[in-house]
C-alpha cells in the first residue's frame, strides 16, 4: 500500500512538472529582438529564396532595424492571421505589402508610407480574346471576379462592384491566396482578378494573361506596429526618413523591380 502511494505521487508529480519544464523551454525570449510578421507569397515584396525570406519590404525593414541596433526575426504566416498576430503581440511589425486603410488604422498604428501602389485587373486573353474592361460597369458582363480575401482588392470589389449593384455577391470569388485566383483565371473559372499592380506585372504576358486596366486607388504601403507603440514607430519613421532619396533605396528598387521580373521561361 505504502509503495503504491509512492508510485502514484511520483506519477502525479511527473505529470505536473513535465509540461511546466517543457513549456518554459518553449517560451520566447523577448529582448532586443524584433519579430517581423509577413506573408511570404507576394513577390517582389516578400518571397522565398533558398529557404530564406527576402523581398523589398523585408530588406527595407531589416536594414532600418539593424541600423538602429535591433535583432530581427522574420516570420511567415497566413495573411489572414497577421492582424491577430499583431494585436495579440505575437509579432511586433507587419511588413507585408500592407496598405494603409482607415479600418486597419483603427486597430494598429502605421508608419509613414514607403511605397505607392495601385490595383489592377488581370484577365486571360487566351480564354476571352475580345474582353476589355474600361469601366466598372464592364464587370457586370463577367461570370466571376476573383481576389484574395482581406486584401485591398477585395475591399475595392466590395465597395465599387457589389455595393453599387454592378455584380451580385455570388459573382465574387474570394481566395485564400491570390495565386489560386490567377490559376483559376487560366482555367476560366474567373474571368478577371483584382490584384496589386506590382504583383500583377509578374504575370503579364504569361499564358495569355494581360493587365487590362489599372485601377487608380492611390493606396500606400506602410509598416504596421501595435497601437500605441510609438517607440518602434518612431524608429521606423526616422529610418524611412533617412533613407529617402538615398542610393540604398535606388539599389533596392533596381534589385526588386527590374531584375526579379526576369524568370526562366
Amino acid at each position, binding site marked *: 500500500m505504502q509503495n503504491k502511494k509512492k508510485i502514484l505521487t511520483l506519477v502525479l508529480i511527473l505529470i505536473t512538472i513535465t509540461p511546466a519544464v517543457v513549456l518554459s523551454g*518553449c517560451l520566447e525570449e523577448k529582448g532586443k529582438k524584433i519579430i517581423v510578421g509577413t506573408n511570404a507569397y507576394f513577390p517582389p515584396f516578400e518571397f522565398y529564396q*533558398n*529557404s530564406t525570406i527576402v523581398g523589398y519590404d523585408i530588406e527595407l525593414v531589416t536594414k532600418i532595424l539593424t541600423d538602429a541596433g535591433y535583432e530581427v526575426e522574420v516570420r*511567415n504566416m497566413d495573411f489572414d*492571421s497577421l492582424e491577430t498576430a499583431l494585436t*495579440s503581440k505575437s509579432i511586433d511589425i507587419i511588413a507585408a505589402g500592407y496598405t494603409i486603410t482607415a479600418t486597419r488604422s483603427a486597430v494598429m498604428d502605421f508608419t509613414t508610407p514607403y511605397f505607392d501602389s495601385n490595383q489592377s485587373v488581370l484577365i486571360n486573353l487566351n480564354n476571352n480574346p475580345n474582353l476589355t474592361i474600361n469601366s466598372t460597369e464592364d464587370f457586370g458582363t463577367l461570370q466571376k471576379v476573383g481576389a484574395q480575401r482581406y486584401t485591398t482588392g477585395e475591399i475595392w470589389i466590395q465597395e465599387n462592384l457589389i455595393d453599387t449593384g454592378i455584380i451580385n455577391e455570388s459573382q465574387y470569388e474570394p481566395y485564400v*491566396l491570390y*495565386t489560386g485566383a490567377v490559376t483559376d483565371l487560366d482555367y476560366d473559372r474567373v474571368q478577371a482578378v483584382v490584384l496589386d499592380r506590382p504583383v500583377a506585372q509578374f504575370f503579364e504576358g504569361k499564358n495569355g494573361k494581360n493587365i487590362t486596366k489599372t485601377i487608380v486607388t492611390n493606396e500606400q504601403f506602410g509598416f504596421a506596429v501595435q497601437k500605441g507603440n510609438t517607440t518602434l514607430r518612431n524608429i521606423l519613421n526616422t529610418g524611412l526618413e533617412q533613407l529617402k532619396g538615398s542610393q540604398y533605396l535606388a539599389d533596392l528598387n533596381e534589385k526588386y523591380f527590374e531584375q526579379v521580373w526576369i*524568370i*526562366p521561361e
Partner: protein
Amino acid sequence: MILLGINNLLNNLPFLFEGLGITIVLTLISVALATLFGILLAMGRCYARQPLPFIIYIYEKIFRGLPLLVIFFLIYFGLSQQGIHIKAFYAAVIGLVLHSTAYQIQIFRSAIHAVPEGQKTAAMSLGMSKLKTIYYIIMPQVLRFSIPGWSNEFTILLKDSSIAFSIGVVELMARGDAINSMNPDGILYVLLFIAFLYFILVFSINRGLNYLEKRYRISGYAATSVR
C-alpha cells in the same frame, strides 16, 4: 510546359524536403506525447476514483468539440495577449497534443472495454493488485486491440499538421504555396509531388503498423486481419 514544371520542382526540392522534415518532426513529437497521455487518461477514465474520470470526461468533450484551428489560435494568439509568448512550433505541438489526446482517450477506452471483465476479476482473485492487473493483464491486450484505430489517428494527425501554418509553422504544404507564388504555372507538379510525399509517409506508417499488428497477434483471439 511539362519540362518547365518539372524543372521548377527540381530547383525547389531542398526547400520542400526541409518542410517535409518539419512536418515529420512535428507529427512524431505530437503523436508520441498524445499517445502517452491518451493511454494514461484512458486508464484514469476507466479505473480511477471520482472525480478524476469526470474531469477527463469534461476535457475530452471540450477538446473533441473544438476545431484544431481554434485551439491553435487560442494557444498562440490568446496566450500571447496574456504575455505568454510560446514559439509557433511548440504552440503547434501543444495544440496537436491537446487535440489528439482527446481522440486517443476514446481509442484506448474502447480497447479497454474489449477486454472481458472476467479476466480482471480472475487476476484479482489470484491476488494481483489493481495496478499489476492493469499492467500485466489488461495493457498488453489493449495495446494490440488499439492498433487499427490508433493508426487512423496517426495519419489524421500527420495531415492535420498542415494547419499549423496558420500560426506560422512553415511546413511542407506552406512551402508548396511559396513555390507556387513564384511560378503559378507549375502548380500541378508541386502539388502532385507534395501529395506523393504525404502518401509515402502514410503508406509506410500503415504498413509498419500492419506488420506489428500481425506479429503480436494473440493467436486464436483477434480476428485474422484482412489485408
